[in-house]
């Protein structure tokens, strides 16, 4: 006897059949998975897919985060990071300050610089180009994963260029790929309520797909655990899946757990462990054309990130120093994990740690 196909929730059995036959799951399947109380059953299905794609491997990256400015014109309700230019706590780094940050960690084997900021109304396009060029000059081998699709659209406005031309200019200056932020939840209802000024879902997808066509990979995210319904989550995933069918440039899907503290939605509760794991697992099952699912440990804590490797995730990000966006929203997780801690965490989960670069090439140790 085995328990492989025996589910506490019998509704999972037909989905198990589909997973075994490698059939695409539909919207109803997505909802069934989200609604199931059988967390381990859903996890088991996701784990089947994850093992099929990545075996025992668990990826991590040694990267440096850089949040160059928190000044933002968008004022999204779920954000504890963005500030108006004249608000206390607003900051922007000069290019000199940015280079100092890069220089102070030159001795570390960092393979990626991850750059995200607000939508600054005044900084000129040259600031961004000079930032990329300057960093590349200091660290020629490093991969620059910079500027979400929302920032790219904003930079295109500032530069007075098309998105494609803006991306090309940035690519020439050293841009390697785009992080996946700013997707939030695609539902027009949610965006009207929480971030009406933000780049629209079709705009967000257009920037990503333009990037893909220019040979730039991007990631994709979903901010969950605020006002969205399960239907809206499934629709978000399906829309990403359809875009990926067209351009194929998404590398990694990263669900972002909403942290209510210090946001305009502070009355909401944070996500629970069930929700975090379920969301990763459903994403792994629905996004059959995404190579990677990342459990961003800074969002959900190292303990849950470790467990997530059994729930569909194959990547737990990396040694993040100075991550500011989530911590301003009250994340209780430590600000950095050492490589030794990370390796221990992965091995205890029964996985083989693989240090990767941005494009998931293994970095020989």
């Amino acid at each position, binding site marked *: 006897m085995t*328990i492989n196909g025996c589910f506490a929730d019998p509704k999972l059995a037909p989905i198990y059949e589909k997973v075994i036959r490698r059939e695409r799951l539909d919207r109803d399947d997505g909802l069934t998975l989200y609604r199931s109380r059988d967390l*381990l059953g859903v996890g088991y299905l996701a784990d089947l897919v994850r093992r099929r794609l990545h075996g025992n491997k668990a990826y991590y990256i040694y990267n440096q985060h850089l949040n160059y400015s928190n000044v933002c014109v968008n004022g999204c309700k779920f954000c504890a990071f963005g500030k108006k230019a004249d608000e206390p706590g607003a900051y922007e780094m000069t290019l000199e300050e940015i280079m100092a940050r890069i220089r102070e960690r030159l001795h570390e084997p960092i393979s990626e610089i991850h750059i995200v900021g607000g939508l600054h109304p005044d900084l000129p396009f040259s600031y961004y180009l000079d930032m990329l060029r300057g960093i590349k000059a200091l660290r020629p081998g490093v991969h620059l994963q910079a500027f979400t699709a929302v920032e790219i659209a904003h930079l295109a406005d500032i530069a007075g260029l098309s998105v494609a031309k803006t991306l090309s200019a940035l690519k020439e200056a050293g841009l390697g790929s785009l992080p996946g932020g700013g997707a939030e939840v695609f539902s027009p209802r949610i965006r009207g309520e929480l971030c009406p000024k933000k780049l629209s879902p079709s705009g967000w997808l257009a920037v990503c797909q333009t990037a893909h066509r220019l040979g730039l990979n991007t990631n994709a995210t979903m901010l969950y655990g605020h006002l969205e319904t399960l239907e809206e989550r499934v629709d978000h995933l399906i829309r990403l899946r359809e875009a990926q069918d067209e351009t194929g440039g998404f590398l990694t899907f990263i669900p972002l757990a909403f942290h209510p503290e210090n946001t305009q939605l502070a009355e909401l509760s944070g996500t629970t462990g069930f929700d975090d794991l379920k969301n990763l697992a459903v994403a792994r099952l629905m996004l059959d054309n995404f190579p990677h699912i990342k459990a961003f440990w800074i969002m959900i804590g190292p*303990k849950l990130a*470790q467990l997530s490797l*059994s729930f569909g995730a194959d990547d737990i990000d990396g040694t993040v120093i100075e991550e500011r966006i989530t911590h301003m929203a009250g994340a209780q997780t430590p600000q950095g994990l050492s490589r030794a801690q990370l390796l221990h965490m992965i091995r205890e989960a029964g996985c083989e740690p693989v240090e990767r670069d941005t494009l998931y090439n293994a970095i020989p140790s």
Partner: protein
Amino acid sequence: MSRLKVIDRILEGRRLDATDALSLWDLDVLTLGRLADLVRRRVHPEPVVTYVVDRNINYTNICTSGCKFCAFYRAPGDPGGYVLDLDSLRQKLAETLAAGGTGILLQGGLNPALPLEFYENLVGFIRGFGLQVHGFSPPEISFLARQTGLSVEDILARLITAGLSSIPGGGAEILSDRVRRAISPNKCTAGEWLQVMGTAHGLGLKTTATMMFGHLETRAERLEHLMRLRDLQDRTAGFTAFIPWTFQPGGTALGGKPAGALEYLKTLAVSRLVLDNFPNLQVSWVTQGAKIAQVALQFGANDFGSTMLEENVVAATGVTFRLSREEIVRLITAAGYSAQQRDHVYRLVGEGGQGLTASCCSSKPLPPTSCRGLGAGCGGREGRSSPRPSPHNTSFPKVAIIARVGAHRDFLARGVEYRGEQRPSTPFGEANPVHVFLHDGVEFAVLSRHGEEGYRVSAPFVNDRANLYALKALGVEKILAWCAPGAINEAMAPGNLVAPHDVLDEGKGGPHTFFPGRGQGFIRHNPVFCPGLRQALIERLADSPFKLHTKAVYVGTTGPRLETPAEIRKFAVLGGDLVGQTLVPEVFLARELELCYAALCYVVNFAEGVKDRPYEPGVLFEGLATAAEVERVREVEAAFADIVLKLLPELAGTERDCPCSRLMERYRRRGDLGEDWRTWFP
């Protein structure tokens, strides 16, 4: 044993041996979790997760044990040592009650400066607040036995007498002497730990069991721990729950890195699979945090543990997770379970308490406690000074009179032989003093409902439960309630005696059941008053100089205020004859304790509006009673002791062939309540 074989055994519901269990660790975490969840659903088919509202109180951090995994203790003489003072304790208890708490998890260091009386008084003090005491892990009991030279059984019996409700399973660490020698050489041995628990179970105490893992022990040693617990549970069935948690190295001599979430969840699942005779498994959110604790509900756990209004021991390692009751309920609910509050012995509290109890707790009924007679109720609170009858004059009163202020003085004044005062401690707070008399070979007890001086305790603040519990603890079986209502029915004039036959409960007052939120007490009340006692007193008072009414409906109100004219008109329409503030809920509470209970009322006034009476400031009843009526009432009051002494042989001699002594029989048959009533209230 191959991994498939062990899965077969689990699916077939067979017990796992040590070899099977060891092979469990080779399974991946999801398979292990799904197996444990399968077993959890066998034990608890209902999707319910329980939690307890309590407070951790650490009465001292001074400890001679010096365990290497502990960051909480101070050695005697070290700076930073403390023993909790009474004011802080009182404050903590009041906060616990305010938070809806049912008990205290009471633990402390092994402090050689504290005598056994300290512990007894502590327990009595806490019980006085109506809180359960889940207290003293085996190392503390073992230490007390060594300190005092008493046996473990004697120590436990003393603490049970003082009111101890159950024992927490701490200090088990790993029940392997190799490990214990390495991490806590001064703490009790594995054998001693198990012996304390076995003895406690034998005395009727429920206990939990813990395991602290993730330090020096091997997985085989964890299994040794589980097997030893399972063996003892086979013999005693006294464990309510198992609580594994991970060693937190911060600030400890042992150091190292903590076991991760995976190891925690796998160990939890293995525990559920091996401990097939443990009813409950508890998550450890204190060490794992809210997210993993919630996920642990799919790895075999069915209990979220405690709200722990305060936690000091794990916090001393720098790990400080905090969860409110609301947050615990939200986590349970978000995981698809229904959240239900329980007490320290895993009985449900609040709505819907009837269903789960039996499957939650071990089906084996509680054995009666070892305490007999007076011992069960006495002691504790007043320490050594409280008067106790010596063994040679303990023919306990079977009859009690609950009467007006200072009623015992009427018997003292008549020279009735006085056997002394009793102040049994109760789980429901402080009872009024009980005075025992002997008249014509019949012992009887007298308790003043409203206190012994003035009218110190007005009607809504009488602690009926404590008073009745105290009387029952003394051996009382029959109660005559003497009370002074007003008359709605004009035929019942001031100075008349009335033996009411029925009750209309119009009160909104205090605790009206001994079983709040527990399901018991859904019992029939017809006749409301003991038919045997009523018959006896009616026959005996036939030739009384006072007019006796043998039927009346007594309307119980809250007080202390008197009723309004409109209320009295309403009561009259409803068929009420008398109105008063004392018999309700007293009569119903007495019946929950299966006491025979009858009331003898003497009318003190006409109720508001029955007669047209002008308002007279500054006098009793403000003019509601005339001087002539007051005079007649005084005559009856003066005759109180004579009336009681006249009734006494009848009351004492009545056979208890009424239903009163088996009013809770249904709950006994169902296994909810044990044969020994003392086991009804933890």
